[in-house]
């Protein structure tokens, strides 16, 4: 079996070669015929040698044509449905009719098989080539079509048909010898036609194309049928016809070939026509089924394309309306405050509300457990006379086992819907249920992601606000850590420098969590940095910060804050507290809970705040320590939700032997985490450790100043 090359360029070059050879041999033949017939005035069949040479030339041309057709349409295609068939039919019909018209208008220059003019030579060759080309093309098309929808014997039948074709040709050539051959010829033709009928099967694909296409195919087939019968009959009945004469002069008895092929084509087209006509009645069902399948596929695509639920509902109602040929459709979805019209086609939401005012309709729409098909509303109620709705289908939609909505289509005529519509809309309802489920999960995922992102942002803000290293404030040794909770709490600490150049530390806790807390933290840092340069001491700083922030904060938020100033000259700590967890200090061997009066920032206006705040001074010496924490430390819980409490932390401060702030902080963390026993922290943990690690310059020559205003 000859394989047709896969490569396109190879196929193209072979085609070109065949065209060139075919055209060349035709031209040579034309020249030869012109010289022999027109110039010499002789007939082609006078000399055997001349006729044989000319026949070889025409055979070459025909073989080239066959080759081109095989290459052009011999490639196996995946499907051969409406489009290629329709275009082939069009090409065939148009070219066949054009050929007939051309043959009719050119002058007949044949004189008993001899061509009398040069023009006649050219036109007769053109007509002959055209005839053969059309016939061979048709044969190719038929073969492809039959092979494409083949059954087990198709190929065999086709080969037999080719043999019959050759047989017919042979008999036609020998027809002049004996009338037996003419009879055989007829028998063969009939047999070929029957074979064609048998071979033309598998036309049920016609049933699946739409009505519109079937009608178009019907007309095209009629045209092709007409063209094929004309071409076929003309060659047989009229020996003097120009087409016949041209073909016969091109190939001896050649007219019979196009005739037979076109006759087989005619048989095929006839069969095809009946198939198309037979397929017409089920068009409505096919159309309906195909639009159902298409619409379900469309909805599936919408679902996977992550379009909004609103878009999906709109598309679904629109499809429901069109496929069920309804007069209106809408979708109600429960948005938490009862059913709301989420999408409506050809019906106004107000009208839907008006329909709900009718108790019967409302009951039908709202309380059915499954799909409801109302064939005629007047059967159900008498007071629906003023409502245009006559029949309706109601599909409840469930999501997560909960009634989430209703799809309703209605018609203004009784019995407007079929059972098929209910079935389809139920499928739609299922799709919408899935889509609603999806949307719900998607939203939950997005919310989670957003919260996670928010937590990340907040954490970034928070960590970027904190100082990276401790300053050198000898003889004081200071160290601080902040350990964020899973959810950002709002803890903050910073090292500061007052107007007189003395250094200090602040520890703060912004009420609230997440980004708002982180932003307040940033605001606080800004306020502290701005005000510390003009502040005389901790209380002054807190007053100024409250003045800056009060009023600009939300009503329910506040910041608790403790500020410590390191006084190297007097070797003391000056402490002011704005509602913050007390400082725990060990001075000498005495434990002190330092809790000067003061209101958290952002709670009261400056006047009240300023009168409430108090500043204490704690004189310290070598080895004395102070611990500042946020409530994340003192309220650290164990798995039984038991808080560690101030006392445990204070006890640790009393006993510690840490000489460095880092050790003190670490020890505090250890104590807290030992209590927590691995429980997740519910709040940030911030610890500022202060240790007097070197002897103060004033230590030796002054008595300790007693701290003022200490509450224990």
């Amino acid at each position: 079996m000859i394989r047709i090359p896969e490569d396109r360029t190879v196929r193209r070059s072979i085609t070109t070669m065949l065209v060139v050879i075919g055209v060349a041999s035709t031209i040579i033949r034309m020249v030869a015929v012109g010289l022999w017939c027109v110039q010499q005035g002789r007939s082609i069949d006078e000399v055997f040698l001349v006729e044989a040479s000319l026949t070889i030339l025409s055979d070459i041309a025909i073989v080239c044509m066959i080759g081109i057709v095989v290459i052009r349409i011999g490639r196996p295609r995946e499907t051969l449905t409406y489009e290629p068939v329709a275009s082939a039919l069009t090409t065939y019909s148009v070219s066949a009719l054009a050929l007939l018209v051309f043959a009719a208008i050119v002058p007949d220059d044949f004189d008993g098989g001899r061509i009398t003019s040069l023009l006649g030579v050219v036109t007769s060759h053109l007509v002959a080539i055209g005839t053969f080309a059309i016939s061979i093309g048709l044969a190719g098309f038929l073969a492809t079509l039959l092979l494409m929808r083949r059954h087990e014997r198709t190929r065999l039948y086709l080969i037999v048909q080719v043999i019959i074709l050759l047989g017919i040709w042979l008999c036609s050539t020998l027809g002049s010898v004996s009338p037996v051959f003419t009879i055989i010829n007829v028998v063969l033709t009939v047999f070929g036609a029957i074979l064609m009928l048998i071979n033309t099967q598998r036309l049920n694909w016609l049933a699946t194309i739409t009505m519109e296409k079937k009608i178009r195919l019907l007309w095209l087939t009629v045209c092709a049928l007409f063209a094929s019968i004309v071409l076929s009959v003309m060659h047989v009945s009229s020996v003097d016809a120009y087409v016949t004469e041209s073909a016969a002069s091109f190939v001896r008895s050649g007219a019979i070939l196009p005739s037979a092929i076109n006759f087989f084509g005619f048989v095929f087209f006839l069969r095809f026509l009946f198939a198309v006509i037979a397929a017409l009645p089920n068009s409505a069902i096919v159309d309906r089924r195909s639009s159902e399948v298409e619409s379900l596929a469309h909805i599936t695509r919408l679902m996977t394309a992550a379009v909004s639920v609103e878009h999906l509902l709109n598309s679904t109602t629109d499809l429901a309306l069109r496929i069920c040929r309804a007069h209106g459709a809408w979708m109600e979805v429960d948005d938490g405050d009862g059913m709301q019209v989420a999408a409506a086609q050809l019906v106004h939401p107000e009208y839907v509300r008006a329909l709900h005012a009718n108790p019967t309709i409302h009951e039908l729409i709202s309380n059915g457990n499954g799909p409801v098909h109302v064939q005629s509303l007047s059967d159900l109620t008498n007071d629906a006379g003023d409502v245009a709705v006559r029949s309706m289908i109601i599909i409840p939609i469930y999501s997560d086992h909960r009634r989430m909505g209703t799809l309703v289509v209605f018609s203004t005529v009784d019995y407007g819907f079929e059972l098929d519509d209910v079935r389809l809309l139920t499928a739609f309802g299922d799709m919408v249920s899935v889509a609603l489920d999806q949307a719900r999960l998607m939203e939950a995922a997005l919310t989670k992601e957003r919260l996670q992102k928010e937590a990340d942002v907040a954490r970034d803000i928070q960590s970027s606000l904190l100082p990276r290293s401790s300053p050198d404030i000898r003889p004081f040794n200071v160290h601080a850590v902040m350990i964020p909770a899973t959810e950002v709490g709002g803890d903050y600490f910073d090292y500061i420098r007052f107007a007189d150049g003395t250094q200090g530390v602040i520890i703060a806790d912004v009420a609230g969590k997440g980004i708002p807390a982180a932003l307040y933290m940033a605001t606080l840092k800004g306020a502290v940095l701005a005000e510390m340069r003009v502040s005389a001491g901790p209380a002054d700083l807190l007053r100024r910060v409250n003045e800056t922030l009060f009023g600009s904060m939300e009503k329910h938020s506040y910041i608790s804050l403790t500020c410590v100033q390191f006084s190297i000259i007097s070797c003391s700590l000056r402490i002011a507290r704005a509602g913050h967890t007390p400082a725990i200090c060990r001075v000498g061997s005495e434990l002190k809970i330092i809790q000067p009066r003061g209101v958290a920032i952002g709670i009261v206006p400056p006047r009240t705040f300023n009168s409430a705040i108090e500043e204490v001074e704690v004189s310290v010496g070598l080895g004395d320590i102070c611990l500042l924490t946020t409530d994340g430390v003192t309220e650290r819980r164990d798995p039984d939700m038991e808080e560690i409490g101030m006392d445990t932390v204070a006890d640790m401060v009393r006993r510690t032997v840490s000489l460095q702030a880092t050790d003190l902080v670490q020890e505090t963390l250890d104590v807290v985490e030992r209590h927590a026993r691995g429980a997740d922290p519910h709040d940030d943990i911030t610890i500022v450790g202060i240790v007097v690690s070197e002897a103060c310059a004033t230590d030796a020559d002054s008595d300790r100043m007693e701290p003022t205003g200490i509450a224990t």
Partner: protein
Amino acid sequence: MNHFSALVRQEPNDICIIDLSGYLDAHTASDLEKIFLTAYDGGCRRFVVNFTDLDYISSAGLGVFMVFIEAVKRENGDIKMAAMKPKVFTVFDLLGFPVLFNIHPSVEDAVNAYPAI
């Protein structure tokens, strides 16, 4: 989950008593805020918050009172706190809330602290 509840009682002398119980934290603060808002919209300006059964209060819970105190005081009302457990009082006290809110040992004291109309 920690339980929280808040109930409003209408008392003579235009006083609204809000009885709190359970845990008042970030999760339950919005419940309290809604109840406060309903009472406020209903015309309540003289509040007494009964802390007898409140076991825990977080910073978010404290924020709720701050939302309303200013508006209530502007209209000659008040939010008086009463009968706090020591631990709850410590939270209020540390933050300096006594400056802003009157805290009474018992509900009766708080009610009586309002002048008769």
